Structures are given as C-alpha cells and as structure tokens.
C-alpha cells in the first residue's frame, strides 16, 4: 500500500478538521495502512492545495462550496464530529487508504 495524501478541511478555526484528522490516523493504524500525509486547511485553501499537491482524497467536515475537485474523491467527515454514520465514513476512508 502506498502512502496517501489527504486534505482534511473545515470552516476556519481548525477544530472539526482536527477531530477528523485524529480519526483518520486511527483508521490507518487499525487497518494497517501507512499513516497518510495530511494537509489540514480551511475550505478557502482547498483549491490552492489541490493545485500544488497530488491529493488522493479530501475529507471536509462541512459542505465544500465552489471548489473544483475534479476526480479527487470527497468523503464527508461530518460523521467524525457528530458520530452519526461514523462506521460508513470509516469504511470509505479505509477503502481509500488501502486503494
């Protein structure tokens, strides 16, 4: 499995994205995938980070608006804040980490 690069993003105060980052690292450790390189940023910085990095997938903790993500998969990370639908989000992230 190759090491992935993930953008984890939220509104502005870096709070909900930090919760998601912790979960993604946990998921990687639990499924034996290499810990991904994580680019943590604000929604407003996603477009720039997509341009300057090779990104495997994006985990926003809210709706990404006005961002051209092309064919980079987007996995909703709100579940890591609310706990609702967390198993599904975990499975999606595990699949991306192992891809």
């Amino acid at each position, binding site marked *: 499995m190759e090491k992935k690069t993930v953008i984890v993003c939220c509104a502005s*105060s870096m709070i909900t994205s930090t919760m998601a980052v912790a979960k993604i690292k946990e998921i990687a450790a639990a499924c034996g995938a290499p810990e991904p390189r994580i680019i943590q940023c604000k929604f407003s910085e996603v477009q720039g980070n997509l341009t300057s990095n090779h990104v495997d997938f994006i985990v926003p903790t809210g709706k990404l608006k006005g961002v051209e993500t092309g064919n980079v998969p987007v996995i909703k990370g709100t579940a890591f804040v609310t706990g609702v639908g967390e198993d599904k989000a975990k499975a999606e992230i595990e699949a991306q980490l192992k891809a």
Partner: protein
Amino acid sequence: MTLNLRPEDILLHVQANSCEEVLRLVSSHLLEEGKVKQSYEEHLVDREREYPTGLALGRFNVAIPHTDYQYANTTQLLVAILEKPVEWHNMEDSDETIPVRAVILSVFDKPEHQIEALQQIMSVLQNQELVARIIASDSAQQVIEFFD
C-alpha cells in the same frame, strides 16, 4: 480538562424564532456578564451564516455555534434550551435546515482549549438519550450534571 458550565449561563425555556435571534440573545447575555467583547455578536452571527453549525444527530438536533477566540474573555460553555425548535442550517449541508432544540455555545479565549472541549461536548451529544434529558431539564443544575 473539565467543561466549564455555570448555572447563570444555562438558559432554559428560551423563546426565539430564528437562529440569528438565538445567537444575538446569547451574545448579549454574555456581553452583560463581561464574558465576551462587544464585537462577539457580529462575529458569531457572521460565522454561523457562512459556516453553519447545526448537527443532525437524530431525533434531537443540536447546534454548536462558536467564533474565534479573540472576541471572548473566558473559556466556558453556554447552554440554551429552546422552548420550541428553531430551524438551523446543517453543518454537513448548509443548503439544508434542521429543527434544533438545544444550543451549546462554546466560548473560548485560547484556541488550544477548543478541541478538547468540543470532543467532550460531542461525547455527550452523541448519546440521544442524554440529549433528550438535557432538553427536558427543569433546572440549570440538572443540565450541568448531564455534562459531567
């Protein structure tokens, strides 16, 4: 770290018709107590407009509004239980609204306090049974105990 909840900032039976009305009401409550700066209210309302904080948790939805640390003088929570549900924009999809009965406002004056506080709040809120009991509380002390 324990969550800082104070009886004077547990507001029960709050009457409001909109999310903005709730935010203005709680801001002026905190301003009167000297816990936030004058500019807190506008920043809180603006941030909510741009990045909504309604959380669809199931039967009882909750909102967790907050803004940056520069506008507050303290680190604590304010809890507002609404008399009737208020439509709130969903964090996951801001085009959608969900009815909210409880508002947990996280006030903080140092950014490093915020993440741990939110994790603790969420561990309470992920338990719908507990949320139901918080909403039905008839005293501030009861609400505080549920967060313990």
